[in-house]
C-alpha cells in the first residue's frame, strides 16, 4: 500500500490524469457502464501502475468515498502511515494529492470514518480480469510477454478481445508474436470449428513451440472435422520440425561457446607446451586464479573483501593466524555493474604473475625433464587448490553477472544468452590478439624462433630463459581470462580448474602442439561434438567418454594432431 501511494503521488503526466479520471468514473458508476470502463482500463495507454494499485485496493475494499461538502463523491485511498490517533492522510484517486479542507489543512481519517467503495463478488471478478489483462501493458516487454503467455494458457476466450486490443498498440515484435500465439491458442478452444481451423493454420505459420501440446491434444481429439484434424496434424509436424531446427542450432551455439572457453584455456597451454614441451598441470589453477580475481574485484566494488587463515598448529603457545582486509567501494548501479570490465584485465595480470612466479621458482629447473615438470606442476596445483580453500573457503563462491551480461535475445526461437555471445566474441578477440602477438611483435618472433629450434635461437643470442618466462606468463594469463569468463557461466570453487584440465589437454593434443589454427579447430570441434553428443545421448558422461575415445582413436591416424608442425627432429 505504501508503494501504491508513492505511485499515486509520482505520476502526474497528462495521460496519468486521463486514466485517473476513468478510474474515478469507474468507481462511482455501476452496472454495465462500470464494466465497460473497467474493460477500457484493461488496456490503458499509460499509468499502468496507478490502475493496478487502485484496482487492487478496490478489490480489497481499500478505496473509500469521501462525501465532499459540495455534495459530490470523492474516491480516496488512505495512506498506510497512521498517526497517533490511528488516522491517515487520504489521497484522492483523481490526482494523487492529499485531501484538504477549505482552509488547506490536510484531512485525516481512520478507515472506519469513511464508507468503502463497494466491490461485490461479481465486480471483484471483473476487477481481477482487468488486473490480469493489465499486465499486458507493463512497461517491461518481458513482463508483457509472460503476461501474454499466462493469459494464452488460461483457456478463457473472454481475454481474446483484450489481447487483440493490446496487439494493436504493441510496439515490440517479440511481444506481438507472443500475443498473436496467445490469441490463437485461446481460439483453439473456441466452439466454432472455423475459428479453430484458422487458429491452427495461424499457429502452424507462427511455428509456435509453446502451443505444441495444445495442438497435439486437439489433433488427438476424436470426432473432429477432417479438414481440422488434417490441419492440426500438419501444424504439429511443422512445429516439431521447427523444434528440431531450433535445438540443432541451439546445440551448435552452446558448443561454440563451450569451445570458446576451451579455446582460451587451451591456447595458453598450447603455447607453453609448444614452446617448452612441458605440460603444466597447474594450468587449471590459473583458471581459478582468474575466476577468484573476478570474485575479489566484485567484492571490492561491493562491501569489501577480507580473509583470515588460522594454521592448525601453534608456535610458542600462540595460534598462528594471518589475514587481510580490503575495504569496499560500496559502488552501486552502473559503477558496480562495470566491475567486470576491471576484473577482466586484472584476472589476466594476476594469473600471469602467478605463472611467472611458478616458472621462476619451479619450472625453470625442470626444462630438461618434462615428465618431472608434469609432476612438479601437479604439486603446485595441489598447493594452490589448498590455498584457495584456505582463503576463499571450500565452498563455491558467488560471482554475479553484471546486468549487461544477463538475459538473452532470440532469433527465430533460438536463445542466445548475452554471456555466451560475449564469451564467443572475446575468444575471437583473444585469438586475434595472440596471433598478432606471435606474428607481428618482436616478442612473437623470439617465441617462434625458440619454438622452432631452441639451441639455434640461443646461439644467435636469443635469451631463451627470458622468452620462456614471458611465454609462460602469457599462457597463464590467458588461462586467467578463461577463468574470468567461467565465473560468469558456472560456479567458482577451489577445484574449478580440474573440470577443464583434461579437456584442454585433449584440445592441445588433438590440435597439434604449437599450432594456433589447430587449437582453434580442435577447441570448437571438441566443444560442438561434446554438446551435440550430450544432447543426442541424453547424458553428459556418455558424450564425454565417446569424445575421449574418439580422440585417442584419431591420434592413431594422425599422431601429431590436426595440424602438426613439420620438424626434422625426432623428439
Amino acid at each position, binding site marked *: 500500500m505504501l508503494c501504491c501511494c508513492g505511485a499515486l503521488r509520482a505520476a502526474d503526466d497528462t495521460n496519468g490524469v486521463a486514466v485517473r479520471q476513468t478510474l474515478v468514473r469507474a468507481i462511482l458508476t455501476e452496472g454495465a457502464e462500470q464494466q465497460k470502463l473497467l474493460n477500457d482500463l484493461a488496456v490503458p495507454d499509460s499509468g499502468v501502475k496507478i490502475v493496478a494499485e487502485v484496482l487492487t485496493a478496490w478489490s480489497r475494499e481499500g478505496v473509500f468515498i469521501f462525501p465532499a461538502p459540495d455534495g459530490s463523491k470523492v474516491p480516496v485511498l488512505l495512506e498506510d502511515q497512521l498517526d497517533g490517533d490511528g488516522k491517515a492522510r487520504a489521497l484522492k484517486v483523481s490526482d494523487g494529492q492529499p485531501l484538504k479542507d477549505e482552509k488547506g489543512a490536510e484531512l485525516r481519517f481512520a478507515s472506519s470514518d469513511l464508507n468503502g467503495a463497494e466491490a461485490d463478488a461479481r465486480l471483484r471478478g471483473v476487477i481481477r480480469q482487468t488486473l490480469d489483462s493489465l499486465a499486458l501493458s507493463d512497461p517491461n516487454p518481458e513482463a508483457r510477454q509472460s503476461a501474454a503467455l499466462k493469459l494464452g494458457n488460461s483457456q478463457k476466450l473472454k481475454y481474446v478481445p483484450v489481447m487483440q486490443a493490446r496487439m494493436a498498440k504493441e510496439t515490440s515484435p517479440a511481444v506481438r508474436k507472443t500475443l498473436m500465439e496467445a490469441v490463437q491458442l485461446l481460439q483453439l478452444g473456441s466452439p466454432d470449428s472455423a475459428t479453430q481451423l484458422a487458429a491452427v493454420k495461424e499457429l502452424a505459420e507462427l511455428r509456435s513451440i509453446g502451443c505444441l501440446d495444445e495442438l497435439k491434444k486437439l489433433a488427438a481429439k476424436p470426432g473432429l472435422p477432417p479438414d481440422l484434424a488434417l490441419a492440426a496434424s500438419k501444424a504439429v509436424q511443422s512445429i516439431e520440425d521447427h523444434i528440431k531446427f531450433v535445438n540443432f542450432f541451439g546445440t551448435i551455439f552452446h558448443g561454440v561457446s563451450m569451445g570458446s572457453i576451451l579455446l582460451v584455456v587451451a591456447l595458453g597451454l598450447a603455447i607453453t607446451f609448444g614452446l617448452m614441451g612441458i605440460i603444466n598441470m597447474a594450468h587449471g589453477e590459473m583458471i581459478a586464479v582468474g575466476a577468484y580475481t573476478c570474485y575479489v574485484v566484485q567484492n571490492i566494488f561491493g562491501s569489501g573483501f577480507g580473509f583470515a587463515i588460522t594454521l592448525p598448529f601453534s608456535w610458542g603457545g600462540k595460534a598462528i593466524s594471518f589475514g587481510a582486509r580490503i575495504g569496499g567501494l560500496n559502488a552501486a548501479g552502473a559503477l558496480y555493474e562495470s566491475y567486470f570490465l576491471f576484473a577482466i584485465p586484472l584476472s589476466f595480470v594476476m594469473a600471469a604473475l602467478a605463472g611467472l612466479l611458478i616458472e621462476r621458482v619451479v619450472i625453470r629447473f625442470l626444462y630438461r*625433464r618434462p615428465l618431472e615438470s608434469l609432476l612438479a606442476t601437479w*604439486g603446485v596445483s595441489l598447493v594452490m587448490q589448498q590455498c584457495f*580453500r584456505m582463503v576463499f573457503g571450500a565452498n563455491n563462491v558467488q560471482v554475479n553477472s553484471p546486468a549487461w551480461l544477463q538475459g538473452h535475445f532470440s532469433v527465430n526461437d533460438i536463445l542466445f544468452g548475452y554471456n555466451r555471445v560475449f564469451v564467443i566474441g572475446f575468444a575471437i578477440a583473444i585469438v586475434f590478439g595472440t596471433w598478432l602477438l606471435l606474428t607481428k611483435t618482436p616478442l612473437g618472433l623470439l617465441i617462434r624462433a625458440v619454438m622452432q629450434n631452441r639451441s639455434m635461437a640461443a646461439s644467435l643470442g636469443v635469451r631463451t630463459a627470458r622468452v620462456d618466462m614471458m611465454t609462460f606468463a602469457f599462457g597463464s594469463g590467458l588461462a586467467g581470462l578463461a577463468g574470468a569468463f567461467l565465473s560468469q557461466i558456472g560456479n567458482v570453487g577451489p577445484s574449478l580448474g580440474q573440470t577443464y584440465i583434461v579437456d584442454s589437454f*585433449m584440445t592441445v593434443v588433438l590440435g597439434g602442439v604449437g599450432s594456433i589454427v589447430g587449437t582453434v579447430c580442435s577447441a570448437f570441434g571438441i566443444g560442438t561434438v561434446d554438446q551435440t553428443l550430450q544432447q543426442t545421448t541424453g547424458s553428459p558422461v556418455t558424450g*564425454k567418454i565417446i569424445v575421449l575415445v574418439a580422440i585417442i582413436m584419431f591420434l592413431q591416424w594422425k599422431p601429431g594432431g590436426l595440424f602438426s608442425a613439420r620438424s626434422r627432429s625426432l623428439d
Partner: protein
Amino acid sequence: MAVVALLLLVVLPCLNRFPAPGSFLHVSDFQINLYGKYLCYAILAVGVDMLWGYTNLLSLGQALFFSLGGYMMGMYLMRMIGDLGQYHQPIPDFLVFLGWSKLPEFWRPFSSFPFAMLMAFALPGALAALFGFLAFRSRIRGVYFSILTQALTYAAWLLFFRNSLLMGGNNGFTDFKFILGYDLRTPRTQLVLYMITAAALILVYLGCRWLTRTKFGLVQQAIKTSENRVLFSGYAAGNYKLFVFVICSLIAALGGVLYVPQVGIINPSEMGTERSLEAVVWVAVGGRGTLIGPILGAVGVNALRSWITRAYPDLWQLMLGTLIIIVTVFMPKGIAGVPGQLSALGRRWKSRPETAPAVDPSQEPAAK
C-alpha cells in the same frame, strides 16, 4: 632386501600374534591392516617404477588398472555376501536399490573365485594391451603418453560413476563379509591377507629385479635413455614397451586385488588420475629407477599421510604438494638417491680447493 622381507613377512606378524596387547613390541590388528594397505600401494608403486623409472613411460592409468583388479575382486566379494545385505536379497544391495530382482548376466560367473581372479588380471591386461598397442604403434611417447593415459583414466572414472554400468556407481562395493569361506572381519583373516600381500610384494620385487637384469631389462633401460637409438639399432622398441606396459598393468591389478579385501571398499574415487599421480609421487619420493625406492616411498608417504590427515586434516594437500615440488626439484633420485647426492656433494666439497683456486673475479671471463 632380505632383511626387509624378513621384517615384513615374519617379524611383523609375530609381533602381532605373540606379545601381549599393550606391550611395547605389540603391533595391533589395526596396524597390520594399515601395513597391508601400504604394501598393496607398494606393489602398485613397483609397477609404476618399472614403467617410469626403467622405461621412461609416465603412465597416469595405473590407478585404473589397480581399481579394475580391485573391482573384479569386489564383484566376487559382493557375491559372497549372499543374502546378508541390508535388503536380505540374494543379489547385491545396490542392484536391489536400482530395481533389479535377479542378477544381471555378466555378474553370474563372478560367484566363482577362479573366474573372478582370471578376470581381475585378464581385463586390465587386455585393456593395457589394446591401449598400449594403439599408442605405441603410432609412437605416442613422452608427455603425450601421459596425457592420453590420463584421458583414458578420466573416461573410465566417468563411466564407473554411472549407476547404469551396474558396478555400484558412486558408492562402489563395500560391506564385504567372506572370502573363500573365511570371515573377512576377523583379525586372523586380515593377518593372513597381510602375509599374502607381503609375499606378493616380495615376489613382484624379485620378478622385476630379475627382469631388469636380463637382456630384456637392458633394452628397456636403453629405451629410457634414447628410444631413437634403440629403434635405429633394429629393436622394435614399441613391442618392448607394450610388454612392460602390460606387465605393469598386471602388477597394478595384483595390488588392487589384494587391496580390496583388506580395505573393505572399492569405489570410483580410487580410479582418478590423482591416484595415478600419487603413485608416481611415491616413486619419485622413494627414488625412481631403483626397485626398493618405490616400496620405501609408498610406505613412507602413506604413513605420513595417515599421520597428517589425523593431526592436521587441512594441511595434507599442502604438504603433499610441497613434498612433490621439493622432491622433483632437489631430489631427482628420491630418498634412495640421497646417499649418492650426499657423497657427490662431499666429493665436490673435498675437491673444491684443487679445482677452484681463488680466482680474481675480474679475470673470471678470461678464464672461461
